[in-house]
């Protein structure tokens, strides 16, 4: 059944017949209508399912890691298995959850809606990107089924090319293939944002979610091809016994590190920028006022994208790069922190004189701001040369990036899901449970990762299967936190699914929020808008009368 646009009038819901208005979910039924869809909203749902599956897999690996680390000796799994566990945890989480995550799910769903377009510029490429993601996932799963890879997600040579006996080639190919999925998404977003904005939607009337996805897409398009060729060279070296990164043949293992981190550092901005975009939307919606310093925040996103390409060497301060090179990368790494700091201040100040409602999405947003602040500050600590030498490759680093990835990206992802869930599904989820989950996530997260800062400064190296006994208490605390965090993640999975069948109808705009996506029904029709919107003012313009008219749940005591 195809989902082409037609000019028929939407079915008006009538209490007698009880028929549902036509929307993208009920426009067509059946597996083919989903697997061959060109509708960006359905593709977003396809991604939601696959991304969640990979997140569950990566979390399972994390669970085993943390269980092993309850005791100083290795007693749960062999060291070899442990090495595969942390490698696959990293590969699955980075390439199959964090990088696609928000752009492929929330971005795909919302970018056309927020700019007033009917779809992305290239709907078929959008669908292709999901299939490519799945294909890359299959290669990686094939690796996992055959015992996984033990090189670390960073594939450092010559270990990965000449010493590892695991399925490096198939995992590398999986990542290579999935890179194209990412590139197609980024390319689609850039063209869409440039060419398909509704009449009157000037650049400075765009929601900040769009700005941050635009910046993210720039990074994707410029950076991903470099990891593609690098990982291809690793696979080629292993397969064909070449010597590009092999010191015995005159190759340079540090060249691999440069090529790898040239992408993988900007990659972390691919992971955080979309989440920052979500936070801007949440703060504006739940304080019911524009984000303070809109233009500054918009330009800060672009600034992070640009500066993010200039700092990769800070992963290699002790790897043998010269002191002068290290100095340059250190100062640039300090600079890249400034736009992020500025954003944090702008979000916080947005709350001043706001009308603040602590519904679940806002809880995630506020949690993000706190955790990202700490995570980001530990980042500048790492940019400080004298300090990094001591804590590099220890749990301090692990704690730092989990504060950003989990305390940052995942909080934004969950906050966004909770905010736009009514838009996506037309349903509401239980308010108490969702707030409880947010609390569990926040507490569990801090208990898991704060002790790791201490462990790192004490000197516990990362990727260690066994450790000296004096590190045990902190490891036990960390594992306890991880259990709580896990429960916090399981609950939304349950109640989101529950809400699809049993949740109350949300109406078009349960939050009384401002934005083109809220000007259409929840869920939206396939073509997004029955008539093309014309934009006459900036984003986030709240006034009381309009809020009253917009809000479909008058008490606004939802979620």
């Amino acid at each position, binding site marked *: 059944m195809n989902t082409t646009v037609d000019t028929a009038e939407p079915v008006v819901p009538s209490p007698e017949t009880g028929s549902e208005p036509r929307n993208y979910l009920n426009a067509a039924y059946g597996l083919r209508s989903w697997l061959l869809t060109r509708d960006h909203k359905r593709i977003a749902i396809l991604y939601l399912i696959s991304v969640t599956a990979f997140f569950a897999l990566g979390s399972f690996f994390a669970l085993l890691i943390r269980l092993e680390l309850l005791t100083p000796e290795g007693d749960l799994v062999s060291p070899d298995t442990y090495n595969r566990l942390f490698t696959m945890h990293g590969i699955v989480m980075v390439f199959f959850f964090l990088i696609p995550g928000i752009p492929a799910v929330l971005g795909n769903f919302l970018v056309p809606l927020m700019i007033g377009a009917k779809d992305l510029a290239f709907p078929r490429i959008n669908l292709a990107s999901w299939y490519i993601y799945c294909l890359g996932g299959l290669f990686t799963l094939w690796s996992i089924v055959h015992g996984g890879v033990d090189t670390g997600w960073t594939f450092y040579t010559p270990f990965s090319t000449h010493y590892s006996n695991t399925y490096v080639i198939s995992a590398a190919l999986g990542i290579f293939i999935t890179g194209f999925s990412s590139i197609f998404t980024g390319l689609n977003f850039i063209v869409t944002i440039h*060419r398909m904005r509704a009449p009157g939607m000037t650049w400075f009337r765009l929601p900040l979610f769009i700005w941050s996805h635009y910046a993210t897409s720039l990074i994707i*398009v410029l950076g*991903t091809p470099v990891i593609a060729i690098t990982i291809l060279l690793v696979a080629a070296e292993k397969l064909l016994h070449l010597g590009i990164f092999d010191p015995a043949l*005159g190759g340079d293992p540090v060249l691999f590190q440069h090529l790898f981190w040239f992408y993988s550092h900007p990659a972390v901005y691919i992971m955080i920028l979309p989440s920052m975009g979500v936070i801007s939307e949440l703060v504006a919606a739940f304080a019911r006022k524009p984000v303070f310093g809109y233009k500054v925040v918009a330009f800060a996103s672009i600034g992070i994208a640009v500066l993010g390409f200039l700092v990769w060497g800070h992963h290699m301060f002790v790897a043998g790069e010269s002191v002068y090179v290290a100095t340059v990368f250190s100062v640039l790494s300090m600079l890249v922190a400034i736009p992020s700091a500025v954003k944090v201040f702008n979000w916080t100040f947005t709350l001043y004189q706001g009308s603040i409602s602590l519904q679940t999405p806002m809880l995630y947003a506020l949690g993000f701001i706190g955790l990202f602040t700490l995570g980001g500050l530990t980042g500048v600590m790492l940019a400080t040369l004298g300090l990094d030498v001591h804590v590099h490759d220890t749990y301090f680093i692990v704690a730092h990036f989990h504060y950003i990835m989990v305390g940052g990206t995942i909080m934004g992802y969950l906050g966004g899901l909770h905010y736009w869930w009514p838009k996506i599904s037309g349903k509401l989820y239980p308010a108490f449970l969702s707030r409880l989950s947010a609390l569990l996530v926040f507490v569990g997260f801090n208990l898991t990762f704060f002790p790791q800062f201490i462990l790192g400064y004490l000197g516990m190296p990362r990727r260690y299967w066994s450790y000296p006994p004096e590190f045990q208490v902190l490891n036990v605390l960390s594992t306890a936190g991880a259990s709580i965090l896990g429960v916090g993640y399981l609950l939304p999975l349950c109640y989101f699914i529950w809400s699809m069948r049993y949740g109350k109808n949300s109406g078009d705009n349960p939050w009384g929020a401002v934005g083109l996506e809220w000007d259409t029904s929840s869920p939206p029709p396939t073509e997004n808008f029955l008539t093309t919107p*014309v934009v006459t003012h900036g984003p986030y313009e709240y006034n009381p009368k309009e809020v009253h008219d917009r809000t479909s749940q008058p008490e606004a005591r939802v979620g």
Partner: protein
Amino acid sequence: MASTTIDTHAPGAAHHPALQHHFDNMEQQKESATLGMWLFLVTEIMFFGGLFTAYVVYRHAFPGVFAAASHHLDVTLGGINTAVLICSSLTMALAIWSAQINRRKLIVFFLLATIALGSVFLGIKTVEYRDKFHHHLVPGTSFAPDDPHLQGVAGQQSQIFFALYFIMTGLHALHMIIGIGVLAVLAVLSWKGRYDAHYHNPLECSGLYWHFVDIVWIFLFPLLYLIGAHAR
């Protein structure tokens, strides 16, 4: 309401048969497709860029070995290939011109000419690869150059040159094969009268891709084939 609306489905709005429904008009579709192709070419630049980076690093590390290894590449064949590719870019441009002047059969002719020239390129590359294989210059376990300058450690290092040679020209050839496939499809569609003076953007976008693949070769040829060539 703070925003007003426009109804784009007003009766009488004529649709070009190639207009996709999420676009408002052909102009928007054309601009989007063109921007998309340019962005894709940017990703290709970054992709090959990684290889060029490795090349620069290693050529700087052992210039003598690179020069000695480069002598094993056939400058004549490489030169012919360069001329062939440049001609194929000309025929590609002429195909687009043919569309602009509404000459359907000419479009097909020039597309086929481009495909033919591309195939000549690939044929010559096959000859070169076979020659390398014959002379045991394929890096890996069977690498055994006959050249006194490439023995021992120098030989091991020259494997890096040959690895880069095969990977760079191999990926380039892969891009050409894909390009030929695309042009074949376009040739069929052109024969069916799909493109005319008002609509031939797919030809232009494919032309951009084809010119890009040509330009990559313009860099590969001197860097791989002509190291120290003046001294031979």
